């Protein structure tokens, strides 16, 4: 059974269709990459998975259950967690407390075990040194790390990442790729939106290309990236 399934899902702001009849299946343990030009509707796709936005039509299934209209909080309990493209830290709380929110409320754990999970995640994401800092004062890179850390702390089945590798140095990027591989190999399913394609293909096994809200191509990363349409739309190479 697929972990996540989109069946003819559409979403629109008034007359502006942002998600156009998208169908998509993600198998358990799979890592799917999503690319597409700016404004293609990639982040909106994640909003539909987390329940921040409700489709105009179509059905979304998670582990075979219809979640099209289920609340974000319930979806988190079911095992879906995300990072936001524009970080949304709990600005008045410390970094540790931010992660603890994910570990205790999202992960539905008592505070003792949740604390251990939160500390592990801080270590994993390189945020331990900032544990007691107020999250509102973090620089952008650490905010992005915090996005990932909070999501990881819920120990999700499905991890949704929205442009988390931007701004990393080469070294940091390598560490980051290693971390994601480790998460993937631990059995967590990943959907990752990323403009830094070389980082993306190091982790994912399948690529989904979105253009103007609709699927443009889908398949093995190397083949998809070679195809004429994708090169024209996404990479700006004339066909």
């Amino acid at each position, binding site marked *: 059974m697929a972990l996540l399934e989109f069946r003819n899902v559409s979403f629109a702001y008034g007359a502006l269709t942002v998600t156009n009849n998208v169908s998509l299946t993600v198998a358990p343990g799979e890592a799917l990459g999503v690319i597409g030009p700016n404004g293609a509707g990639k982040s909106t796709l994640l909003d539909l998975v*987390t*329940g*921040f936005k409700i489709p105009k039509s179509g059905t979304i299934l998670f582990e075979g259950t219809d979640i099209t209209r289920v*609340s*974000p*909080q319930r979806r*988190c*309990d079911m095992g879906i*967690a*995300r990072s*936001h493209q524009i970080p*949304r*830290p*709990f*600005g*008045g*709380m*410390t970094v*540790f*407390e*931010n992660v*603890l*929110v*994910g570990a*205790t*409320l*999202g*992960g*539905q754990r008592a*505070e003792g075990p*949740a*604390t*251990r999970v939160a*500390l*592990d995640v*801080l*270590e994993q994401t390189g945020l*331990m*040194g*900032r*544990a*007691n800092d107020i999250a509102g004062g973090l620089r952008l890179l650490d905010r992005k790390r915090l996005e990932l850390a*909070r*999501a990881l702390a*819920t120990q999700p089945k499905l991890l949704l990442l929205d442009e988390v590798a931007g701004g990393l140095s080469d070294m940091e990027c390598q560490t980051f790729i290693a971390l994601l591989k480790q998460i993937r190999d631990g059995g967590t399913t990943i959907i990752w939106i990323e403009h830094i394609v070389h980082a993306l293909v190091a982790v994912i096994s399948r690529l989904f290309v979105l253009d103007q809200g609709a699927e443009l191509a889908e398949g093995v990363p190397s083949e998809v990236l070679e195809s004429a349409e994708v090169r024209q739309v996404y990479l700006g190479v004339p066909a």
Partner: protein
Amino acid sequence: MTQPAVTQAGPHARLTALCIAAVILALALMPYFADRFVLRTATEMACFLTLAVMWNLLAGFAGVMSIGQQLYVGLGGYAFFLIAAMGGVPLMAALGLSGLIALLIAVPAAFLLFRLNGAYFAVATWVLAEIAALIAAQSDAVGAGAGLSLPLQVARALGNNDERTAIFWWLALGLAVSAYLVAYLWLRSGRGLALMAMRDDAEAAGGLGVSTRQNRLMVYSVAAFFTGIAGAIIFLTKLRISPSAAFSVNEWTAAVIFIVVIGGLGSLEGPIIGLAVFFALRTLLADFGPWYLIILGAIAIATMLTAPGGLWGVLHKRFGWDVFALRRHVKLTIGEKS
């Protein structure tokens, strides 16, 4: 690899707890050494402190911006007078019941109000309080515009003037201490994390498993409960209640917001400091008439602009003080700090 320890205690937790206990004890003994005027002022202060802690829990910790808490002050007050008029209900039970009635009204009110967001929510809380005032002013059962007086025998049953003053003080003190205890335990728990996450970003909190509906409902009804009892005690000490006094937005919300904002929005220490400032200013500016409110407003705005954390925020930053430690602190070794 061993994990760093996490503590939730301030730097001198034991000493602080001891000092708090000593202060509460001294306050409880006040009727044995303070005169009636001091006790009356202290009683009023304790009631305001309860209102302030509850408003801070709502606005400062949970991001629920109500400007209509006077609804529950009035409801608690009226409920108490009606229960007292029936006769035979013990004082403590009557007070508890008044709080419960406020809570019972808060639950359906919450379902209505939380459909609205931001400014619409705030305005709606105020409108609801105004509606309650209008209903009270039209209802002959509660004396309409003139209001109600506490039956003489209820006051008499509490003893002579001195004994009554002492009882009122103990009730108000007990309520303020309970309100602090509840807020303190709540904010230190996992549910406290949920409140603060919700305040900082409700949507992101929802995505991380925080039930915003449930948490808002809880904080709103608990605040109504304590606010209702505070209202009951306030009007018990006044011996009379009327719609304009019971549902006064100036007295029960504007003043309370002033106290919290000056002292420190989102800290438990803040309301105590704000309370001291408020009562000092009120005494000082007693002769200035309407200027009094204008000056209070100006001070509140100046504080919001220059020190959003209020006076306590400034002290905390400057000296690192913590009386009510809410934060969880990860004990990092030198190597882990960056």
